[in-house]
C-alpha cells in the first residue's frame, strides 16, 4: 500500500515537473503547445538510451536528456517563433512536431521502434523526484519574478506595448520555450528510469493535451495552480484505479467543470504562498488595495 501511494506521488511529481515548465511557457507567453509530449519523449529516450546502451551514469544521462530537449526546443522555436506566428498557428505547428517525433521514435533503430526500450535501470526514487520538483518550482518562481519573467508577461498582455518597452518578442518566447522543453526533458528522463520501460505510444498527443490542460485548468500565469492541477489529473484517476477510457472521460469532465466554474483556472493569476494561507485561515479578504478608487 505504501509503495502504491509512493508510486502515485512519484508519478504525479514527474508530471508536475513537466507541467511547471509548460506553465512558464504557455501561462506566461500566452502561446499554446500541443506537442510537449515530444520534449518529454526526447528526454526519456535520450537518458534511457544512454544508460541502457552506453552504461552512462544516471545523472549524466538525465543532464543529457535536458540538454537535448532544450536544444530541440531551440530548433523548433527558431522557425516558428521568429515568424511571429499567431498563437493558433503555433499550436498547430507544435501538434505536427509532436507527431513527427513520435513517428521518428517508432522508426529509428536506436529507439527499437514500437517495441521500445525494456529494462532501463530503475534509478528514479521518490526522494530524487521530490528534490527535483522543489528545485524546478524554485527556479520557475525565480524566473517569473525576475525581469525576464516580467518581459514574458508583458508579451502575453500586449505585445505591441511590450515591444515599445524594448522587449524582443522572439527572445522572450524562445527563452520560455527552452525552459519548458528542458523541464519536460528532465521529467522524461526521470520517467524512463522510474517505469524502466518506454515506448513511443506513451508519448502521444494525449500526453501533450494533459500537460496543456493542467496549465489551463491550474491558471494561466500561475505556477502553483498548474502544480496542483497536474497532481489532480494524475493522482485522482490513478487513485480511483480507473480504466484508461474512464480516465479520459474524467479529464474531460474535470476540464469542463473548471472552465465553467472557474474560467480563469483554479488559481487564476494567484499563487499559493504563506501569506495567502495565513490570510485564508484568518478569513480576511485577499484583495489588495480595493478596486476602482476615485
Amino acid at each position, binding site marked *: 500500500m505504501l509503495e502504491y501511494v509512493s508510486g502515485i506521488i512519484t508519478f504525479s511529481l514527474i508530471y508536475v515537473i513537466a507541467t511547471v515548465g509548460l506553465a512558464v511557457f504557455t501561462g506566461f507567453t500566452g502561446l499554446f503547445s500541443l506537442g510537449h509530449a515530444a520534449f518529454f519523449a526526447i528526454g526519456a529516450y535520450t537518458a534511457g538510451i544512454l544508460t541502457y546502451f552506453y552504461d552512462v551514469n544516471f545523472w549524466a544521462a538525465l543532464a543529457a536528456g535536458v540538454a537535448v530537449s532544450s536544444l530541440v526546443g531551440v530548433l523548433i522555436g527558431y522557425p516558428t517563433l521568429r515568424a511571429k506566428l499567431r498563437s493558433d498557428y503555433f499550436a498547430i505547428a507544435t501538434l505536427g512536431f509532436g507527431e513527427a517525433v513520435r513517428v521518428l521514435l517508432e522508426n529509428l533503430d536506436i529507439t527499437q521502434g514500437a517495441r521500445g526500450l525494456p529494462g532501463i535501470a530503475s534509478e528514479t526514487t521518490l526522494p530524487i523526484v521530490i528534490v527535483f520538483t522543489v528545485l524546478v518550482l524554485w*527556479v520557475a518562481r*525565480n*524566473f517569473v519574478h525576475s525581469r*525576464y519573467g516580467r*518581459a514574458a508577461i508583458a508579451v502575453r498582455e500586449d505585445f505591441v506595448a511590450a515591444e515599445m518597452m524594448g522587449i524582443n518578442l522572439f527572445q522572450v518566447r524562445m527563452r520560455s520555450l527552452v525552459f519548458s522543453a528542458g523541464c519536460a526533458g528532465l521529467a522524461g528522463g526521470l520517467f524512463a528510469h522510474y517505469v524502466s520501460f518506454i515506448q513511443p505510444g506513451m508519448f502521444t498527443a494525449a500526453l501533450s493535451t494533459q500537460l496543456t490542460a493542467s496549465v489551463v485548468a491550474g491558471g494561466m500565469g500561475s505556477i502553483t495552480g498548474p502544480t496542483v492541477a497536474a497532481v489532480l489529473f494524475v493522482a485522482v484517476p490513478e487513485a480511483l484505479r480507473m480504466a484508461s477510457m474512464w480516465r479520459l472521460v474524467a479529464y474531460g469532465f474535470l476540464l469542463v467543470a473548471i472552465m465553467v466554474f472557474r474560467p480563469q483556472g483554479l488559481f487564476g493569476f494567484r499563487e499559493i504562498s504563506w501569506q495567502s494561507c495565513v490570510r485564508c485561515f484568518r478569513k480576511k479578504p485577499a484583495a489588495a488595495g480595493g478596486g476602482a*478608487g476615485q
Partner: protein
Amino acid sequence: MSMLELKGVTKNFGGIVACKDISLSVAPGQIAGLIGPNGAGKTTVFNLITGVYSPTAGSISFAGRDITAIRPDKVVTHGIARTFQNIRLFRNLTVLDNVRIAVDKEVDYALGEALVRSPRVKSREREICALAMEHLEEVGLADKAEVRADSLPYGLQRKLEIARALALRPRLLLLDEPAAGMNPEESLELAGLVRILHARHDLTILLIEHHMDVVMELCEKIFVLDFGVKLAEGTAEEIQTNPEVLRAYLGEGYKRVRSQ
C-alpha cells in the same frame, strides 16, 4: 538642426493611402502638435516612427540617425517612447508592475543570476521597485501602485501610460490623444502635467490631440493632416488663420470648440 525629421513619408495599406508624402521636422526641446480629423493618418505617423509599420516610401531620422523601418523593440534604444490612442497597458498587472517592466531595461542582471535569485538580483529588484515608484509619484499614481491597471479610471490609465513611457527615459515622447475622453478641466490639468514633465525631463514632445485648448496651450508648432496629406504647419496663430485649414478641417466645428 532637427530632432525628428520625416521626409516624404508615404504609407499605403492595400488601396488605402494612410500617409502621403508627409515631411515634418520637430526641433529639440519643442512641443509639437499633430492635428486633423479622424482617419487623417495621425496614428499611422506614430506607428511609422516607432517601427510598428514601415513606410512605403520616404525616410525618418531621429537625432541625426536614420530610423526608417526600424524594429519596434529597438525604438527605445534610440530614446523614443510613446503612448497609445487605444490604451495599451498590461491590463492584468498592477500599476507598479506596468512601470517596472519599463524600468527593467535600465537595470541589467543575467538570466543565470535570475534563476537562482542571487543577492545581486534581490538588490536590483529593490532598485527597480524604488525607481518605478518614483515614476508613479511624478504622475500622482503612487497610492495606486498595487491596484490592477485595468481597474483604474480612464484618465488615470492614460497617466499610467505616460509614466510607463517616461520610465524608459526617452528624449522624444509621442503622445497619442492623451486627453481623449477627458472633460475640459481634466484635459487642461493634463496639459499642465505634460508641461511640467517636458521641462523636468528635457523632452521633445510630439502630441496628437483633438482638444484644441490643449493643443493651443502646449504646442509651439502644429502640423495639420487631412486625408493623409500635410495641409499646413505653423504656430497656433498661423494655423488658426490659415484659410485652407479653416475650410478643410476646422471650419464651423473649430469655432464651436473654441467657444466652449
